[in-house]
């Protein structure tokens, strides 16, 4: 018998090798208590959270929690059904109404996760004979959506407008084309030149999908994302987003002004063949989205945190993924996986949690310590974070 698991041997060996050096397993951390959007108890120790994408700190918002409790009481624990059968409750419609209002768009479709939103929309709208043109650093959910569908996939160099334009011009003029972009790329926290990319895509007759997972709630005048910030949201055909970041719950969505968009509810398999979100989750999400529409002060503080952390880390001598703070993600580049894991563990010992990101999730084979800031981090916490980075960095010998 061939052991189907033998294909994982190299990864198993790499993992064992890493653990043999004495570092704690970075991928099996347990949050024993969560005290607020920015503090949890890990290994019995109070720990500052700096890797949760909880950008706006909505997870413990009083109104959000109250909405969830009420829905739990009134609608029960779960829906036990697909959105197209028995799984659409009042709360799902209210959540979609909140999204339509938030983005100022005609249609909104809520999925059970952000992953499924990309998987479903991309695999369904681009079919056989169509082309999907995507940035090489696209998120796994975008690649998986491509793999699930039947379109031809064309990749271009990360954030390279000229490379995109060249490829678009080589495609058959009359073929269906979908250009897939992200507002903020989650590994390095860099922002895409959407304005130029959308211009060349429109000139080539392509439809455009932008994943704004890491920008919703704090980039753009109304928090609609990078496309809004760059003044091109009206040219985007489909915005994909998630509830598991700024919104503070779980779920995914697509908003669009396409006149035929509603047909997606019948043809999109990751929407149809799965159970819908529980009533409490959609109620929390709707309450959170409505609050995110009016959050100017929190946004300003989040940006201040991000700039302060970026400058502080750079001044300490860390190598960062972007020349300036472009989003609420600050990526610290580690020399290699082993040093990265050591630094990660040293930070945790100092009471600070960040994300350890490594290939294949990262671009260019990099190991990253990814920091995501929260609007609820106080200025004192950011100063504290910097001193913990300094202690850990010196202990590990990175700075």
């Amino acid at each position, binding site marked *: 018998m061939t052991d189907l698991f033998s294909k994982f041997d190299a990864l198993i060996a790499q993992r064992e090798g890493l653990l043999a050096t004495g570092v704690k397993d970075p991928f099996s951390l347990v949050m024993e208590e969560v005290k607020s959007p920015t503090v949890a108890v890990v290994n019995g120790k109070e720990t500052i959270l700096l890797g949760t994408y909880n950008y706006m700190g909505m997870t413990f918002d009083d109104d959000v929690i109250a909405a969830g409790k009420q829905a739990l009481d009134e609608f029960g624990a779960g829906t036990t059904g697909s959105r197209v059968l028995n799984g659409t409750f009042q709360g799902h419609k209210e959540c979609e109404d909140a999204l339509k209002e938030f983005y100022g768009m005609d249609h909104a479709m809520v999925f059970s996760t952000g992953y499924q939103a990309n998987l479903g929309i991309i695999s369904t709208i681009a079919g056989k004979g169509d*082309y999907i043109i995507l940035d090489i650093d696209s998120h796994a959910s975008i690649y998986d959506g491509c793999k699930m569908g039947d379109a*031809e*996939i064309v*990749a271009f*160099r990360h954030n390279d407008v000229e490379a995109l334009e060249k*490829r678009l011009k*080589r*495609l058959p003029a009359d073929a269906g084309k979908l250009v897939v972009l992200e507002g903020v790329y989650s590994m390095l926290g860099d922002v895409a030149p959407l304005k130029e990319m959308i211009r060349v895509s429109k000139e080539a007759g392509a439809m455009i999908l932008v994943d704004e997972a890491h920008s919703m709630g704090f980039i753009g005048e109304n928090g609609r994302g990078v496309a809004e910030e760059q003044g091109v949201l009206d040219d985007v055909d489909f915005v994909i987003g998630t509830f598991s970041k700024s919104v503070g719950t779980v779920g995914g969505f697509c908003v669009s002004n396409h006149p035929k968009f509603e047909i997606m509810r019948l043809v999109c398999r990751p929407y149809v063949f799965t159970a819908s979100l529980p009533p409490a989750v959609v109620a929390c999400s709707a309450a959170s989205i409505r609050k995110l529409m009016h959050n100017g002060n929190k946004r300003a503080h989040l940006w201040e945190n991000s700039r302060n952390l970026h400058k502080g880390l750079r001044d300490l001598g860390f190598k960062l993924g972007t020349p300036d703070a472009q989003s609420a993600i600050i990526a610290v580049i580690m020399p290699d996986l082993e040093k990265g894991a050591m630094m990660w563990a040293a930070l945790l010992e100092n009471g600070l949690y960040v994300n350890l990101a490594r290939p294949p999730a990262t*671009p260019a084979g990099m190991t990253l310590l990814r920091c995501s800031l929260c609007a609820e981090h106080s200025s004192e916490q950011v100063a504290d974070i910097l001193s913990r980075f300094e202690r850990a960095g010196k202990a590990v010998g990175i700075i």
Partner: protein
Amino acid sequence: MTDRSEMFDRLKGLIEPFNKKGVEVGETTTFAGDLEWDSLTVMDFVAEVEDSFDIIISMNLQAEIENVGQLVDAVTKLTAA
């Protein structure tokens, strides 16, 4: 077979700057195995070939190309179209 050997030579020329190990390149040389290219190198190389011949090598097609001979066939077909 002049056309084929011309195509082979041209592609071999494009491979050379990425051939850090100095591997002897033939028809059966594989990109992942023999040349030990990672996904980043593959992307840079594919972009180079695409721009040189003004073609698109989709990711669907890339998945089927494992060695230099297969690349010669694929590019020949794409440029003939």
